[in-house]
């Protein structure tokens, strides 16, 4: 399977045309010039697209792939209408599948599996909520255990738990070396 078709498969929900738009890139570099991350890191948007065009799989292992904040500035400015930010998301999906997912990202994902929230409530905020006249616990999965069950069902259906390496017996992340 070619790199292109694997990325297309990962990005199915955002559409094949969106993914394929990188084939039109003429390497002008307007993306890199617009990139706030490129100012402070060695992430070079143009280079990522260049490597995708060349079918270069090493792009999946490059930590720079994760330096994009998905600000969409490059996407807005691209003269060839390459949907760069969405492509980055799909390429990251493939990288995650191949095990290139940082421990901190796996932890963020595990909070949603455990609580339904990527940033769960704490005691300090509960107290502040009461002071502000709000319910102590928000009317979310925090308050409705059945809703949390629905989230977990979805996660099992898409195998997101396996992707993240979540152990349901210990309700925590499996030990996994970081690639």
């Amino acid at each position, binding site marked *: 399977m070619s790199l292109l078709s694997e990325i297309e498969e990962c990005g199915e929900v955002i559409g094949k045309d969106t993914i394929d738009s990188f084939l039109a890139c003429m390497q002008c570099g307007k993306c890199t010039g617009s990139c706030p991350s490129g100012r402070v890191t060695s992430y070079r948007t143009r280079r990522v697209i260049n490597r995708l065009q060349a079918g270069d799989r090493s792009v999946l292992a490059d930590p720079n792939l994760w330096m994009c904040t998905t600000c969409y*500035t490059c996407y807005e400015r691209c003269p060839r209408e390459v949907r760069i930010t969405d492509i980055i998301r799909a390429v*990251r*999906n493939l990288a995650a599948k191949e095990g290139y997912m940082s421990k901190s990202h796996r932890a*963020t994902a595990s909070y*949603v599996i455990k609580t339904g929230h990527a940033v769960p409530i704490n005691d300090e905020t509960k107290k502040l909520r009461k002071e502000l006249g709000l319910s102590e616990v928000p009317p*979310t*999965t925090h308050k409705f255990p059945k809703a949390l069950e629905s989230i977990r069902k979805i996660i099992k259906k898409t195998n997101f738990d396996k992707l993240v390496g979540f152990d349901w017996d210990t309700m925590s992340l499996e030990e996994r070396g970081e690639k």
Partner: protein
Amino acid sequence: MGYDEFRREGGKMKEYAYFLGCITPNRYPGIEASTIKVLKRFGIETRDLNGASCCPAPGVFGSFDLNTWLLIAARNVTLADMIGLDIYVTCNGCYGSLQEADHLLKERPELKEWVNEILSDEGLEYKGRIKVKHIIEVLYEDIGVDKIKDAVVSPINAKIGAHYGCHFLKPSLVRGHGSPEKPTILDELIEATCAESIDYKDKLMCCGAGGGLRSRDLNTSLEFTRQKIANMKDAGIEASVDTCAFCHLQMDRGQIEIKEKFGEEYNLPILFITQLIGLSFGFSTKELGLDKHSIPMTEKFIR
């Protein structure tokens, strides 16, 4: 302007489901309290969206697995669809996820079919009858700058740096609010409180939190924030006003982290737009949760 006057002018009472997300209710509930209070001034009621979850963050969960991202986002939209209420959000991340999911489901029938097959387990069905709105749209379109101006009783006399964040306006193709290169919507809302919205270097730059960068590489993420805040200080700005709970956390708590990591101290107060408007409507700093921010409010923002 009070509710009665609003009704006399023929305003219809509007009700929204408030999609809270994570940061607003679990870290900055002052944003939640302020938003509900400000909307109530104009007769706009807020209803709980029971059983909602993380949106889930578009640049984070969208980067891990787009299928899971779409299903959970679609479930959140569907909770409001089931009770027939439009949604408003107070976080650009939530807006990014819910608005994009809604857009995709409206454009692509095969996705709608797939989502509904899975959501039917919970007795839910996405029909696409509602709209996902950002609080900025509710303030600007449902209420309007003039009505906000008329309701100001305690004018804000300060120089403000507007921070739009990224996902409220971009991708413009999906959001549909026009060009993201020179927006004025937030500046107009800020100036409705009598404050002055000041231009500054790289005004539209990202705060640095998104796309999973904050959790993966905090130092890099904070370097974006440091640049933005230093640019605002250089322009003589006295506080920054934002549209997004996640940017809000990054710029408020982030200043403490910047101090710890880089040894630089800025002390720039950070307010969410409904906190600024709330102050101008005469609500107290405490009622709006502003006294619990990491960066204390300066005199001009204490009521």
